[in-house]
């Protein structure tokens, strides 16, 4: 569905070099700390910035050749940008109706009501959470095929995040041909929503793995110096020195569970894996 091949963008203090893919019927997560290159990647897909090199194709077509009809198939949520604060959700509905042939006004109105968003209040007077909800509601209201969501849950509490993820799951269940690319700070939430995950650090993709595999096969090994010296490190991906010894990331939990019963082993979480890959040293 989406294919990014060797996308390059250079800024004075940052350079992005990224390849990734989103398949139809899948939710793909892009995880990385602030400034890692998530938003730059998203903006390149949406044609908001001009890449220095590489190719981005969506629905099998180069995004530089997109027509308005192609753009109607994309639903976008940007972390730091949205509808003008001087508009109301009611205004947004009228605008979307003119911009999108397949805009479902009744669905949008229903979701506003369900989410407790006032139709006639200016967006600038909304709380951060209300603004975030409105952005997502707008993006899923015109039968888009592909959602690109940059930090859609920023500013939301746990309950609101759950509600939003439920909306996204329903969106995917309605049509198996749809796809989502989503980034978030709340990696733990992405574990349950995403089918696969990309981790980006300093402008480069450092890991791509199915979310299930991360949860089942990745683990953190906590070793003292003696255990570390004796450890078979062929499946250790990165190592970080700690006060007690060494913290090691592996993608072969079972191997260490079976062969090194004395070593403390913690299940991998996306946050932990990301931290180890970003801050650990290669084994």
């Amino acid at each position: 569905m989406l294919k990014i091949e060797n996308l390059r963008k250079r800024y004075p203090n940052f350079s992005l070099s990224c390849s990734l893919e989103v398949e139809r019927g899948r939710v793909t997560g892009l995880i990385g700390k602030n400034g890692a290159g998530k938003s730059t990647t998203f903006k390149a897909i949406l044609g908001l910035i001009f890449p220095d090199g590489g190719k981005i194709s969506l629905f099998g077509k180069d995004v530089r050749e997109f027509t308005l009809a192609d753009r109607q198939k994309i639903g976008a949520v940007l972390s730091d940008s949205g509808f003008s604060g001087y508009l109301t959700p009611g205004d947004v509905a009228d605008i979307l109706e003119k911009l999108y042939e397949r805009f479902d006004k009744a669905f949008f109105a229903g979701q506003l009501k369900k989410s407790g968003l006032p139709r006639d209040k200016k967006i600038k007077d909304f709380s951060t959470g209300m603004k975030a909800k409105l952005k997502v509601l707008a993006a899923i209201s015109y039968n888009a095929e592909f959602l690109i969501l940059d930090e859609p849950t920023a500013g939301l509490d746990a309950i609101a995040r759950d509600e939003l993820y439920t909306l996204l799951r329903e969106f995917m269940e309605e049509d198996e041909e749809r796809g989502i690319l989503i980034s978030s700070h709340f990696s733990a939430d992405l574990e349950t929503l995403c089918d696969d995950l990309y981790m980006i650090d300093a402008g480069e993709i450092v890991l791509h793995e199915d979310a299930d595999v991360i949860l089942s096969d990745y683990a953190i090994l906590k070793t003292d110096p003696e255990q570390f010296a004796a450890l078979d490190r062929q499946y250790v991906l990165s190592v970080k020195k700690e006060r007690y010894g060494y913290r090691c990331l592996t993608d072969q939990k079972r191997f260490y569970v079976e062969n090194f019963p004395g070593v403390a082993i913690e299940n991998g979480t996306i946050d932990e894996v990301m931290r180890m890959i970003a801050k650990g040293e290669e084994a």
Partner: protein
Amino acid sequence: MKGLLIKDFKMMKNQKNIFLTGAGIAVAVALLSGDSAFLISYVTIVGAMSALGTISYDEFDNGFAFLFSLPVTRKTYALEKYLFGIIFGGALCLAATAVAVAAEYLRTGGFSLPALIVGLTELPVLVFILSITIPFKLKFGPEKSRLALFASAGLIFIVGFVILRALDNGQIDVTSALTELLRTRPGLAVGAAIAATAAMLLLSIGISIGIVNKKEF
């Protein structure tokens, strides 16, 4: 285009209190002073400035990024700003002219031809303001565009002054020549003014599209 126009009209609607206050003051001044030219010029300029203000609202809080993620081309966005400015400013100009004519009728019982002429001459002024300001707004943003506009206005004034001075030294009296043209061939003079305004508008639109096409958000 339609979606963008609706967006801008909605933004204006949501600030109707500011307009109503401004309109009330303008009408009161016009009725009390009988100065219809002031009313029409003031309202037209307010209309132009308000229309230009929508660019600032679009840009506020990095709004351009989201706007251009919608099914809107950069070219359409630039064109829409001119169209909205002309529709909104033009409507206010015509409304002010109607109020001025009505006010004159209430005061004297007669029809005010001068008010109508002022109203019609304000329309090219509106296009002129939009043509000059929109490229600056798009290029420099709300804050820096003001500085850039002042600097450019100063530069145009100096260049104009130098040219007029040079023509003066060459014994060519531009003011007299223009007055003479207007007196002897008013059709040609008005036609030339309209053509010059249209040319300026087209040039400005071309520049604006170029600016938006090059922008990254």
